[in-house]
C-alpha cells in the first residue's frame, strides 16, 4: 500500500543503516553524548533527591532556632531563656534542645547524639541508626561503650535500631536520655544546645525574632525560611556549585555540537549530491539527517538518563557524593529515594536533543541545496 507514512519509514530505515556503516564514529559520538547527558542528569537527579530529603527534614524543623553566641561562635544557651522567650507575645512553644556530635576513635566515625523533646528512652538506654548499629556491630539488647568528655566509659544498652529507609535522617543518629547526654558532655543541667521556637502566626516570625535579639543581645535567631534558602543556595540547580558543574557540562555539549555542525565530511557531501541526483528532494535529505540526529541524541538522552538514574538512586551518586553531600557525620551509605523532576528532564531534553538535531540538519541543508547536476560532474 502506498502511504506517506511509508516514505518516512523508508527514510528511517535508511538512516539506521546509514548510521551503522560508520559504527566507530557514531558509537564514539554516542558515548561522548551519553557521558555528557549522564553527568548533567546525575546532577539534576541527585540535587532534586537531596532537596526532597532536605525538605522532608526541614518539614519537621521548628519555625525558628535560637542559638546563643559567644565571641561570634555558637555557645550553650541557658535553659532559663526559654521561659522568658515563651512569654513574648505571639510565641507558641519554646523547647530547649540537646544535641551534639561524638567522634568514636575506635570505629573512626562521627555520630549525631540527640535528645528528643519528649524522652524516648530511659537513662542507660539508646536508640541508634542503622549505620551506627552496623558500624558498632551491635543489635538490640547489646551494650555500647561511649567515652565521656572526662574520658570515663559510659555503657548504654541498645533498645532499638532505626530502619535503613530513614537513613539520610537517622543513619548516624544516637538518641539518648537527657541525663546520659549531660553525662557524656559534662553539660550543666540548666543549659541547652539551642531553643526550638514555634510561632502562632508565621507573619510575626520576623517581629518575634527582632524582639528576641532585643531582649537577648547574645542570641541569634535562625528562621526556617533562612535554612531553606541556604539549602537552595547550595543545592538549587541554578545556584552554587551546580551552576559551575552544569556550565562545564553544557559548554562541553556546545563544543561537541559545534564540532558536529561544522564537521560534514567530503564523503557525506558527496553522498548528499548522489541522493539528490537520483531523485531525493532536499526535504528527504533533511529528514534523513533529522532521523540520524534523533536516533543518536534520543539514544544518548535515554541511555544517559537511565545510567544517571542508576548512578544516583542505586549507587548513591558515588561519583560525586563526597563533593556534594557536605561535611556531615558518618558518610552514611544511604540510598536516595527516587525523585525525578519532569520539568528538569524537559529542560535537559530541550537543551541537548534539540540543539544537536539542529546541529546535524543545518550543514546537511547547506550541502543539500546544491544543484543535483553536481553529481554528474563529480
Amino acid at each position, binding site marked *: 500500500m502506498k*502511504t506517506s507514512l*511509508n516514505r518516512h519509514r523508508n527514510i528511517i530505515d*535508511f538512516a539506521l543503516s546509514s548510521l551503522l*556503516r560508520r559504527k566507530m564514529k557514531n558509537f564514539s559520538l554516542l558515548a561522548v553524548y551519553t557521558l555528557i547527558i549522564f553527568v548533567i542528569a546525575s546532577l539534576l537527579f541527585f540535587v532534586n533527591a537531596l532537596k526532597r530529603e532536605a525538605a522532608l527534614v526541614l518539614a519537621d524543623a521548628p519555625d525558628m532556632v535560637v542559638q546563643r553566641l559567644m565571641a561570634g561562635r555558637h555557645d550553650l544557651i541557658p535553659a532559663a531563656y526559654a521561659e522568658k522567650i515563651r512569654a513574648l507575645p505571639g510565641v507558641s512553644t519554646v523547647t530547649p534542645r540537646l544535641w551534639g556530635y561524638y567522634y568514636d576513635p575506635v570505629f573512626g566515625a562521627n555520630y549525631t547524639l540527640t535528645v528528643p523533646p519528649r524522652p524516648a528512652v530511659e537513662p542507660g538506654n539508646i536508640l541508634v541508626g542503622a549505620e551506627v548499629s552496623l558500624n558498632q556491630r551491635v543489635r538490640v539488647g547489646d551494650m555500647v561503650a561511649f567515652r565521656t568528655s572526662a574520658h570515663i566509659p559510659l555503657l548504654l544498652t541498645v533498645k532499638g535500631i532505626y530502619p535503613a529507609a530513614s537513613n539520610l535522617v537517622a543513619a548516624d543518629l544516637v538518641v539518648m536520655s537527657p541525663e546520659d547526654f549531660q553525662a557524656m558532655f559534662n553539660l550543666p543541667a540548666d543549659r541547652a544546645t539551642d531553643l526550638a521556637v514555634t510561632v502562632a502566626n508565621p507573619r510575626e516570625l520576623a517581629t518575634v525574632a527582632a524582639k528576641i535579639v532585643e531582649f537577648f543581645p547574645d542570641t541569634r535567631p535562625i528562621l526556617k525560611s533562612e535554612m531553606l534558602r541556604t539549602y537552595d543556595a547550595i543545592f538549587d540547580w541554578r545556584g552554587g556549585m551546580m551552576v559551575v558543574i552544569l556550565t562545564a557540562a553544557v559548554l562541553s555539549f556546545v563544543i561537541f555540537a559545534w564540532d558536529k555542525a561544522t564537521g560534514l565530511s567530503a564523503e557525506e557531501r558527496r*553522498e548528499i549530491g*548522489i541522493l539528490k541526483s537520483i531523485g*531525493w528532494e532536499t526535504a528527504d535529505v533533511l529528514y534523513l539527517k533529522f532521523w540520524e540526529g534523533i536516533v543518536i541524541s534520543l539514544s544518548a538522552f535515554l541511555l544517559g538518563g537511565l545510567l544517571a538514574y542508576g548512578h544516583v538512586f542505586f549507587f548513591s551518586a558515588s561519583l560525586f557524593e563526597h563533593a556534594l553531600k557536605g561535611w556531615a557525620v558518618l558518610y552514611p551509605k544511604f540510598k536516595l529515594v527516587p525523585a525525578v523532576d519532569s520539568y528538569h528532564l524537559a529542560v535537559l531534553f530541550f537543551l541537548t536533543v534539540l540543539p544537536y538535531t539542529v546541529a546535524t540538519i543545518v550543514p546537511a541543508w547547506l550541502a543539500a541545496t546544491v544543484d543535483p*547536476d553536481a553529481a*554528474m560532474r563529480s
Partner: protein
Amino acid sequence: MIELSHVTKSYNVGRNNQFTAVDDVSLSIESGQLTVFKGPSGSGKTTLLSLVGCMSRPSSGRIRLHGIRPAFLAAEEGNDGFDISNLPERFLTEIRRTTFGFIFQQFNLVRGISVRENVMLPAYPTTESHAAFQARAEELLRLFDISRHAASRVEWLSGGELQRVAIARALINNPAVIIADEPTAHLDSKLSREFMEIVALFKGQGKTVLIASHDPIVYDSRLADRVVEMRDGRITVSGPEP
C-alpha cells in the same frame, strides 16, 4: 517524446568566468529509441543530459516532455506534453525520480552500504512499501547476475559489477527514460559490449535511452537509432530523425 527548443545553459552568468555549456540547441528525441550524444570532452553532452533529466534548468529555451504524466499535473493538463524549463525543484525531483533512471560515469554508488541498499536508494523517498521495492531490487539483481553480491558492500566489487549495480539502481523505479553519461568510460571492450547488450534489453522494453559517449562501441553500435554530434555546446550533426 522529448522536445528541446533553443535551449541554452550558461554558468556563472554576469561574472568574469561566465561560460555557455549548451548553446541554442533544438532537438526532438523520439520515445523508445536509443539516441547517442557524441563529441569531445567539454562539448556540452553531459550538460544537455542533465537539462533533459531535470537536474538543472536551462538559462533560456524550452524543454517539453510528452507521454509522461507526473502526479502533480491536473487531469486536463499535459495531454500534449508539458514544459519542464521553469518547474520548481520539488516537481523536477518528482519527474527525475519517476521518469528518469541515471547511470553516471563514476557510477556514484554510496560506499559503506550493501549492493541491495544501493539499488533501492532512489525508491526510499517514495510512498511505496519497503517490501515492494526490495522485491523489485532482488529481481533486478538476479537479472544482472549480481544476486550473490546483494549483501556485499559496493567497494568490494569489480568495475563491471559496479556498473551493473548502477544500472539496477537506475531501473528500480521503472523509469521510462534511461540517461547514461559516458557509461563505458571505465570499462574494457568486453564489458562495454555487455553494457550494449543491456541497452538492447532496455530498447526491448520500450524505454527511451540517451547516452553521452565518445566510445565507438557505443556510437557505432547498430542499436543506436540516432547519433547527435556536439561541439562547443552546439549540435554539429543531429543525425537523421527516425
